[in-house]
Structures are given as C-alpha cells and as structure tokens.
C-alpha cells in the first residue's frame, strides 16, 4: 500500500495540531489557577475590597489566557488548512510549527499568572494602591507574553513558507529544529519574566513610595530575562532561512536538530534563573530604596553570570550549524 505526500501532510497537520493545543493549554491553566488561588486568599483577608480584587483576577487571567489562544489559533490553522507541497520538508515544518507554539505558550501562561496573583494580594493589603497595581500587573504580564509571540511568529513562518525547493536531507532537521528552538527557549523567559513582575506588584503594595523606581528596575530585569528567548529566536531564524545543500549523509541533519534542541533547552534555565535574580533585586529595592544603586549593580552582575550558560548553548548551537 502506497501513501503519497498529501497523506503524510494531513497526518503531520492533525497530530501537530493536537500536540500544539495540548502543550499550549498547560501553562495558561497553571497561571490562571495561581491567580484564582491568590484572589481567594486576598478576598479572605479583606472581604470589603472583593469587587476590585475579583475584577483584577479576571483581567489577569484573560492576559494569561492569550498564550493558549495563540496555540488554539495555530492548532485551528493546522487542522483546517489543506497543505500542499512537493517536498517532504513541509511535513517536518508542520510538526515544528505545532511544537513551537505548543512549548512557547507554556512559559508565558505560567508567568502571566504570577503578577496577577500578586496584584490581587496587594489590593487586599493596600486598597488605595489599586490603580497602580493594575497598571503594573498589565505591564508585567504584557512583557511575559513576548516569548509566546516569538513562538507564534516562528510557527506562522513554518506554516506559510514554501519549502518545495529544499532537498529533504538535511532540511527536514533544520525546520523541525527551528520549531524546537523557538518553542523550548520561550519557556524559561516567560516564567522568569512573571517572577520579576510578581515581586514588583508585591513590593508596591508593601511600600507604595518605591513604585516608580521599582517599576523601572522591573522593566530592566524583564528585558534581560527575555534575552534567552531572543537567542532561541535568532537560532530558529538561521535554521529556517539558511539553505543547506543536499547530502547523502545523515550526520548534517542531526547536527541541525541538535542545534535547535541545544539552544531551546539551554535557554530554559537561564530564563528562569535571571527571573529569580531580578525578582530578588526588585523585591529588596522596594524595601530598601536608599540602596537602589548597590542592589541594581549586584542584580545585573548576577544576571550576567546566569546568562553565561545560555551563551554556551548559543556557541554550541552555532558551531553545530556553521562549523561541523
């Protein structure tokens, strides 16, 4: 029994759509659950402010939900588009697109839940700071969503690029590896960005006078926390847009697949770690505003050291693409 390429495209599209939505649903659900738990705790502490806490819980959950809505969109496209191609590279591109968006939604979903939960708790402690807390929750959550938007971009590029002229070996590994690089590298930065924003919301509710400084430091910390996801995006772009000559060997393909896995998995730890480092800085600046300079300097040094392992992963990924 012979199966043609359209059969395999359909198989890849439906399985990839399922994996995409399955993975993509995890993070948002965890983040929203955390927000709801914190909102309940907040209302039990201060029932008089329950209306505002309830409202900010729903807003926070809606932002966390957006990551899994991206995954839903990509899954729908995979299920209901009739993909046509003459090269089997497209089969792997469809699989890569599903994995990119599925993994990419996990971090942002979990991360966005943290500031929303902390804002709810903060409103029970300092009802007067409600507006400021809502603003900071929105800023923090929005930055948390950027890694999942990177993944969405890569998923769309993989879905709608024409790979017909590329030979199967080793290009199947390049497109599949690009999906893994973008998807996995988004996990750490999403969670890390959320931890930073959480401490910012908590700090504002404890010492409202520190709001301005602490918010600046939060944005600085979140920006650096995004860098591992940006390194993953960079490797994904190189893997997709560089044309690899046809080969009879299998090792070049596995070098490209290894490159995607290396920067993808390697970016998770530094993303979370930089988030933890920066959350410590933001937390203690709001409690000890006088020593903002000392704490910021130490925070940046600590984050730079945590970044070093992501740089090692980038070096190995680039060596796998360009040298071996």
């Amino acid at each position, binding site marked *: 029994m012979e199966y043609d390429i359209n059969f395999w495209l359909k198989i890849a599209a439906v399985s990839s759509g399922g994996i995409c939505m399955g993975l993509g649903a995890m993070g948002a659900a965890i983040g929203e659950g955390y927000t709801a738990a914190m909102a309940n705790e907040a209302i039990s502490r201060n029932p008089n402010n329950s209306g505002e806490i309830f409202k900010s819980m729903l807003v926070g959950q809606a932002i966390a939900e957006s990551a899994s809505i991206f995954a839903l969109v990509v899954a729908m496209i995979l299920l209901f588009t009739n993909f046509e191609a003459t090269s089997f590279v497209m089969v792997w591109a469809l699989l890569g697109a599903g994995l990119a968006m599925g993994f990419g939604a996990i971090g942002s979903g979990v991360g966005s839940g943290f500031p929303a939960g902390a804002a709810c708790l903060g409103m029970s402690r300092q009802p007067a700071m409600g507006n400021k807390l809502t603003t900071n929750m929105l800023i923090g959550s929005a930055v948390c969503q950027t890694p999942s938007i990177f993944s969405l971009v890569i998923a769309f590029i993989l879905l709608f690029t024409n790979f017909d002229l590329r030979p199967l070996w080793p290009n199947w590994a390049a497109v599949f590896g690009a999906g893994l690089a973008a998807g996995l590298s988004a996990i750490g930065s999403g969670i890390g960005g959320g931890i930073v924003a959480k401490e910012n919301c908590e700090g504002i509710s404890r010492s409202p006078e520190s709001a301005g400084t602490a918010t600046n430091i939060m944005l600085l910390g979140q920006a650096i926390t995004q860098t591992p996801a940006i390194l993953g995006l960079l490797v994904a772009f190189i893997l997709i847009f560089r044309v690899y000559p046809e080969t009879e060997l299998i090792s070049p393909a596995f070098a490209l697949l290894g490159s995607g896995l290396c920067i993808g998995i390697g970016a998770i*730890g530094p993303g979370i770690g930089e988030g933890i480092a920066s959350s*410590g800085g933001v937390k203690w600046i709001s409690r000890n505003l006088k020593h903002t300079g000392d704490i910021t300097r130490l*925070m940046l040094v600590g984050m730079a050291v945590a970044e070093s392992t992501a740089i090692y992963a980038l070096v190995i990924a680039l060596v796998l693409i360009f040298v071996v």
Partner: protein
Amino acid sequence: MAIEGTDLVRAAAFLGAGLAMGLGAIGPGVGEGMAAAKACEAIGKNPKEAGLLTRTMLVGQAVSESTGIYSLVIALLLLFVV
C-alpha cells in the same frame, strides 16, 4: 540512502552534543539566579557588607557554573574529538 557506520556515529555525537549543552545549561542558570536573588536580599538587609556579599555571590556562582562548563567541555569533545 546508504547508512555508513562513521556517519551514524557522527550523527549521534552531534545530537548528543546539543542535548548535553542544552540540558546542562538548565541547572546552572536556575541555581545562579537563586544565588543572585539571595545576594540582593542580603545587601538590602545589610548594605554595609556589599563588597563581601558580592564576592561570596560570585564565588558561589562560579562553583554553580562549573557543571555548565563540564557540559560545554563534553559538548566540544563530542563535536571535535570523538
């Protein structure tokens, strides 16, 4: 497509190098972040000892970094030696 033994070994070594550095980067990244977060806390509580605390943080992070460097060494060995 004919599969040769040396080609297969190289393919496995390349995939292994990617996995070694990728997985090996998770632990040091998280651990060094925790060290930095606690150092920020310590300076927040006791700003006078900033120099001592920074030194301790860096030494601790360097030790935590060592496992990342082991991964880097193994990845480079897999790429260029084996």
